[in-house]
């Protein structure tokens, strides 16, 4: 009953409690790990089902009980997709749209972002406010009038409405990238440019030779996001493109799904879907950190 004894008892019980808590923590972590794994797998089931069903034989599609994994993978389903509809053309069109739209995005966003970040001109802050406002602009408000404008220009049923506006940093999506560029440029110390300007370099030279090399992260992020958005866009091609030879992949999949002759061929529809998704997955694997970066920089991401 000495105080020394009681303190020792207290230390022992405290140590017991601590080790018990540590054990509980460890058990909890293991449980969490298992739960997360189960949850992740269920979460990915629709995507996995799409891939596995793309390799089914047509008899396995409407089978009872439901076939989860095909007996033998029918790789020829993918070849068949290209036969039933000109998916090679669709892929090419998608490629063209992404190429020109993203090029235009990069071009205009760098220029405009730089202007907002570095140059002072009357009305700049007003237009910057306008830019921020257009970030929140629902795309639907310009759908109908733009269609009429493009119709008057004769651009309907071409890929022009899907590419040209993006050379002008216009909604959807591009104002966000302008904002990103501007924020990034503002973070670059001014001394470098000032030195160059004093030496007699033109603005555009400083932009190209000094700012751009330092801006690789933001340019990469914008490129990755813009590629994703233009590649997966469905509403705009739906509105502007009608002939088969100008369809993008998105329209191709929708067309396959709506076609009476093919919508029952789930294996084909899924093969087309997988085909369209593969480039994006590849992009994701290689450019993953730009996706995450982009979201955390802006809060927007992917849709």
């Amino acid at each position: 009953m000495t105080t020394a004894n009681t303190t020792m008892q207290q230390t022992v019980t405290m140590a017991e409690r601590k080790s018990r808590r540590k054990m509980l923590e460890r058990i909890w972590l293991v449980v969490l790990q298992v739960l997360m794994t189960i949850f992740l797998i269920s979460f990915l089931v629709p995507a996995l089902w799409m891939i596995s069903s793309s390799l089914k034989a047509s008899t396995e599609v409407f089978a009872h009980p439901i076939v989860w994994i095909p007996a033998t993978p029918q790789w020829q389903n993918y070849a068949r997709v290209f036969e039933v509809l000109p998916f090679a053309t669709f892929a090419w069109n998608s490629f063209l749209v992404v190429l020109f739209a993203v090029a235009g995005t990069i071009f205009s966003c760098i220029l405009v972002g730089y202007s907002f970040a570095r140059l002072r001109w009357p009305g700049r802050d007003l237009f910057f406010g306008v830019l921020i406002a257009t970030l929140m602009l629902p795309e639907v408000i310009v759908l109908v009038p733009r269609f009429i404008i493009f119709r008057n220009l004769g651009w309907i049923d071409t890929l022009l409405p899907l590419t040209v506006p993006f050379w002008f940093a216009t909604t959807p999506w591009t104002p966000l990238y302008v904002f990103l560029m501007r924020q990034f440029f503002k973070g670059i110390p001014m001394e470098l440019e000032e030195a160059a300007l004093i030496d007699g370099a033109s603005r555009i030279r400083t932009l190209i030779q000094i700012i751009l090399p330092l801006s690789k992260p933001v340019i990469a992020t914008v490129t990755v996001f813009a590629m994703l958005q233009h590649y997966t866009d469905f509403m705009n091609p739906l509105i502007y493109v009608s002939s088969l030879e100008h369809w993008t992949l998105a329209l191709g999949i929708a067309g396959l799904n709506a076609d009476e002759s093919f919508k029952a061929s789930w294996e084909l529809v899924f093969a087309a879907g997988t085909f369209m998704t593969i480039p994006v997955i590849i992009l994701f694997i290689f450019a993953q950190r730009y996706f995450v970066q982009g979201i955390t920089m802006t809060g927007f991401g992917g849709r």
Partner: protein
Amino acid sequence: MTDKKSTLSRRQFLILSGQGALALAVLAGCGQAAQPAEEAPAEEPAAESGGEQAEPAAAPVELEFLAWGDPADIEAWDKLSSLYMERNPNVTVKVTSVADPNNNFYPKLQTAVAGGTPPAVSSFQGWEWQIYADNGVLAPIDDYIDRDSFTAPYPEGIKSIEDSTARNGKRYLIPLQLGTMVMFYAKNHFDEAGVPYPTEDWTMEEFLDIAQKLTDTSGDFKKFGMQANGSWFRDIHWIRSTGKQEFDEIVDPKKALFNQPEIVDMLQLMAYDVYHTLKIAPTPADMEAGANAIETGNVAMKYEGAWFFGRLNSPELREEGKQIEFDVLLMPQGADPERPHRGWAEGVALPQSEKVEAAWEFAHFMGSEEGDKIYAETTGRIPNSLDLVESFWIPTIQERFGVQNGQAFIEAFKRSEVDVVGGVPRSKMWSEIVKPVGYDPMLGGSATAAEVLPKVDEELQKVLDEYWASQ
């Protein structure tokens, strides 16, 4: 050292002026509702006076053909245009095909017409061209028909052809195919259930009775006696079989008359009971994404057309052993003793332009016996004259698809009438009113025909009145 900062670099200037020019172009284009027609191509149009242009010295002509884009059609357009261009080296036919899944064919045509650059030749279904004719967009072809004695596609006495190709005394459409629909039945369902195949003189009661006998949804593999079409156009057959029609006139209707007892009963049967009470047809839920259909082997009978042959039985399917043996026959007898069937023509018409004569030559070629044979053979569709059907088409479908009773198509066509033409396009009536107000609730089982058809009449009447008031 030149003061570089005070002058715009050349590059900046080019950027500015390029964007400025583009901006001006954009803003200039916005102000006009329609652009004037593009400068006419440098070629002279073929001489307007009659007479053949057989000499190779004839002036070069380019014809734009806005064509229906079903895969089978595309192949046919290829063959026909190549052959025509071989024989007429001065003519270039440029085929633009528009696939329909996005409902984009007519909008594209509308855009071209409104923009002042109509195609020389355009595909049309027999009920969609009237509004263009009324607006003066299409060229009447009576003179050409007389001049070239092109009478085969326009036999006397078949009302559906009259209504599909002519309007207000003038002819506009050159038919490339005839359309009608009959009852398809899959033989194996009958064989397995020991039910004899239906015969020509069968009645509605017998039809429903057979359908019930052939329905068995207890097992894993569901079987249904019939597949209901679930759309107004196809159900027009059933509606007219009652002896009534859903409009006061089927050419230029002015009054909507869905809400008549006979029609109410019939639609209650065909758009509701077969799904929900009798359960002899797969519901839309059953059929989602192509499941439980006649072509998957689940259904015994379906009202369909010639385009459907290849989905059930074809040389390719027979190779893989996946074919469904079937035959066709006239629809069962209803209250109307005439037993009308639906019929129409589809083909091409000629928008007004300086190239009408040259366009006619090409369209005439496609509709001639030779051209139409190629078309029918490639697409599998019914040729544009009953003689060709008899002599050429029926033997073909027997061999290719196993159809023994092709004669049924001729019989059906002789008794045919169009769905509805003129005035408000039927596609507009369907998608804006008949489907959402009438069919969707019935198909979904949430309202009966007696409940929805009065509303359908009310809404349709508004649209009709609005249209006729503005004429």
